[in-house]
């Protein structure tokens, strides 16, 4: 790992102003992506501004039909939250399937969505449930937040502070994990929201997480696993790697969408 300068932030404004004064600094949250990347010398931030100790970012609250999760909430915290379990059980099942227990003890929702790994779970939750990403300066709908692989709408130095999830009438998540890494080969969040059925797919798309309009239409007409499995997905838009061809992933999308409905 290259040299870096560590700073522990005490508040959101402390973190953003500290980062603004650095040459090439980065926020550090749970470190479950950033530290392995730094160890492999694929990232070399001049400074690390640790946001994991900011108390204001560690709250989960339910207000009417909105579940707000602070950016520094760990996957374990979400997985173990009875409030979230009651409001959006699909989110609890998604969080408890991320990586392994030690990763869940440190990794955070803010870090996960800021990173926008094309095989990460939370981007599918945000997009599928129609969440709003709250930053230190604005609110961004999930539809505009996830721009492409490892790319988000975040500006330089902008910090995620929370994610607001509207409570769906029904939602289910299903992922086919890569047996070695546990990241999604294909993960599907299917939800009946106030604005109709939304289906988001992670792990599979060439440009990262995406909404699947054919699945949304089919499940909007008939909320059933059979309806989901009748929808085909164009392999040309799917990733291919040593773990699976694009045809394999295209097929898995329908299967996982069916299981997501079954889990709802």
């Amino acid at each position, binding site marked *: *790992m*290259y040299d*870096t300068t*560590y700073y522990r932030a005490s508040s959101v404004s402390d973190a953003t102003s500290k980062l603004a004064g650095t040459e090439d600094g980065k926020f550090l949250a749970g470190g479950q992506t950033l530290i392995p990347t730094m160890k492999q010398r694929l990232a070399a931030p001049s400074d690390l501004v640790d946001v994991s100790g900011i108390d204001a970012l560690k709250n989960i609250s339910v207000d009417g039909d909105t579940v707000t999760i602070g950016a520094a909430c760990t996957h374990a915290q979400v997985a173990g939250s009875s409030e979230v379990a009651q409001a959006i059980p699909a989110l609890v099942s998604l969080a408890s399937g991320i990586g392994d*227990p*030690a*990763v869940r003890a440190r990794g955070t929702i803010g870090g996960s969505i800021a990173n926008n790994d094309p095989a990460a779970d939370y981007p599918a939750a945000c997009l599928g449930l129609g969440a709003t990403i709250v930053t230190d300066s604005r609110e961004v709908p999930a539809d505009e937040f996830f721009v492409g692989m490892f790319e988000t709408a975040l500006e330089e130095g902008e910090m995620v502070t929370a994610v607001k999830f509207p409570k769906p009438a029904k939602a289910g998540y299903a992922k086919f994990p890569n047996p070695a890494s546990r990241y999604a080969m294909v993960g599907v969040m299917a939800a009946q929201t106030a604005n109709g059925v939304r289906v988001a797919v992670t792990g599979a798309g060439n440009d990262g997480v995406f909404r699947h309009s054919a699945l949304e239409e089919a499940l909007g007409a008939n909320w059933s696993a059979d309806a989901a499995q009748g929808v085909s997905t164009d392999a040309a838009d799917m990733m291919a790697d040593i773990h699976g061809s694009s045809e394999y992933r295209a097929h898995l999308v329908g299967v996982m969408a069916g299981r997501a409905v079954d889990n709802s």
Partner: protein
Amino acid sequence: MTKVTMTVNGKARSAEVPDNTLLVDYIRENLRLTGTHVGCDTSQCGACVVHVNGQAVKACTMLAASAEGAEVTTIEGVAASKDDLHPMQVAFKENHGLQCGFCTPGMIMTATDMVSRYKEAGKTLDEHAIREELEGNICRCTGYHNIVKAIADGASKMA
């Protein structure tokens, strides 16, 4: 350099370390507690698992600076004394839960963490749950079967 202060196995420890020092390197190199192992550079094997403020974490994927003020327990801190092993250590011994022993410290730290978490949540730690909970711990020798048996046995002894 950053000054880090933490309680390790009940003792207050502090040192000046470079900011990029991993917690596992601080534990092994500065404190000379070499029971915590490093088995990979991809955060996947779990040989480095220690408890930080009561939670099992991968010490290779956390900076020492991030553990400022924390209570840290390593494998050296679980037994009451050399002749009075922790029930989970006894269970690994009695159930042949190890061969070379490289993964064992991480396995034990993960095991005691899962037992206390399940107990706290009032959930049953059955064989299936143990296997799921071992997702982040890799063993190259035993084939896991005896590790799972040892954890089930250790869990009953910890009750």
